[in-house]
């Protein structure tokens, strides 16, 4: 199918973009890479009156360090994020997840901001942002605000972004040098929407116990979820604890049902994925500790 007729706007600055968005609000769709908006327009799931192409706004695709956080501009292309040594070093979880995002052809256009703004329940970038406890920076004509990722994703394709707000940047917490990471997902074909995805970030202390742990599941609920794991701090980072955490995680989520998988299958995949990512993240953390000593 083809999109409905729309007006095409190409602002040169964030101020101009926020101005048009403020005027058109729900009638406007913001176009970055178009890898998710494109299908929505072609299938006429979205029928905007105006499409605002933000890709020519200078400086909106930069990566910069802001204290304990790394900010990635909304139009930073996924392939460029993957090539960034700085992001690989400071946000290793994102670097591990990016090869799972779509295909080579879509990563060459798709952006970090677009994926976050779109908020597909199974998308990898939002999952990493939730696990890493990052934030989304929003700008309207009048003001700028930051929303914690864990409060930004409200449901399938639904976020805390107001109709007059533009996603301008994503803020990632810089990972501790001894933090280990792992990411894995299961889809019908590599690059398709994940039926379930798991991401893990963990720190181990001198005696091999869990010092910090963030674990998340994507594609299972209608938004990426961070599993509450504070009860496992101080426990031995071993197979038994992993099995217990996996069990605890699947009991704490309410899985979606769709044409691809029922809830039971999604939970079975989640359990298996946690059993795969946790030992890998633990191994990574051990290796990093050794290297630091």
């Amino acid at each position, binding site marked *: *199918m*083809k*999109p*409905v*007729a*729309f*007006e*095409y*706007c*190409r*602002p*040169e600055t964030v101020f*101009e973009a926020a101005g*048009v968005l403020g005027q058109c609000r729900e009638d406007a769709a913001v176009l970055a890479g*178009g*890898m998710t908006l*494109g*299908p929505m*327009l*072609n*299938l006429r799931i979205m029928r905007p009156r105006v*499409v605002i*192409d933000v*890709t020519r706004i200078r400086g909106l695709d930069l990566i910069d360090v802001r204290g304990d956080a790394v900010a990635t501009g909304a139009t930073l292309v996924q*392939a460029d994020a993957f090539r960034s040594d700085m992001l690989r070093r400071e946000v290793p979880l994102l670097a591990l997840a990016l090869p799972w995002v*779509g*295909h*080579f*052809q*879509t990563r*060459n*256009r798709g952006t970090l901001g677009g994926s976050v703004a779109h908020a597909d329940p199974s998308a990898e970038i939002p999952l990493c942002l939730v696990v890493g406890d990052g934030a989304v920076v929003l700008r309207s004509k009048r003001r700028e605000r930051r929303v914690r990722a864990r409060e930004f994703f409200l449901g399938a394709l639904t976020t805390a972004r107001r109709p007059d707000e533009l996603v301008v940047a994503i803020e990632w917490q810089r990972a501790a040098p001894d933090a280990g990471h792992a990411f894995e997902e299961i889809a019908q*074909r*590599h*690059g398709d929407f994940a039926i379930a995805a798991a991401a893990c970030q963990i720190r181990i202390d001198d005696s091999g116990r869990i010092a910090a742990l963030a674990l998340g599941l994507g594609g299972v609920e209608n938004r990426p979820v961070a599993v509450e794991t504070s009860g496992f701090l101080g426990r031995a980072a071993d197979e038994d604890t992993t099995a217990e955490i996996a069990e605890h995680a699947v009991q704490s989520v309410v899985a979606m049902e769709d044409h691809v998988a029922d809830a039971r299958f999604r939970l079975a995949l989640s359990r298996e994925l946690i059993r795969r990512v946790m030992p890998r993240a633990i191994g990574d953390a051990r290796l990093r500790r050794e290297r630091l000593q």
Partner: protein
Amino acid sequence: MSMLRLAPNARHRVELNVNGAARCGFAEPRLLLCDFLRHELQAYGVHVGCEHGVCGACTILWNGEPVRSCLLFAVQANGAELKTVEGIAPNATELHPLQEKFWELHGLQCGFCTPGILLTAEALLKEIPNPSEEEVREWLSGNLCRCTGYQNIVTAIQEAAKTLSERRT
């Protein structure tokens, strides 16, 4: 500088470079790049399959990188440098080694997916001159083929890689 605003239901001039030649055509804002290339610029090698970014048939090179032309609008391509399958052979009588090997090794049957796959493969061989089977399969994961079962496509790409590296030495 004032913001560019293009009205709906009106055709706007788009100037770009396709396969090394300066081209221009007209497009409504909603015209997909794949349809623009086919109907305005007669690049019929751009195949339109699913129109929502799943099948990869419409893959072209945008500034050297493979992208899906069904998820882009023609008006976005002003000033871009594109390559379609029409541009991969060195001249009108010779084929690109990829095309030769696809022909020789049965890398296609109906041929609908072939232009997108050839362009993906061309970009792959520029980035990784001698890809492993696994690397070829990973790059190909964005292109669907319903005839060949992929085996011969993978072989053809690896054989073309050999031809190209022999030529370089």
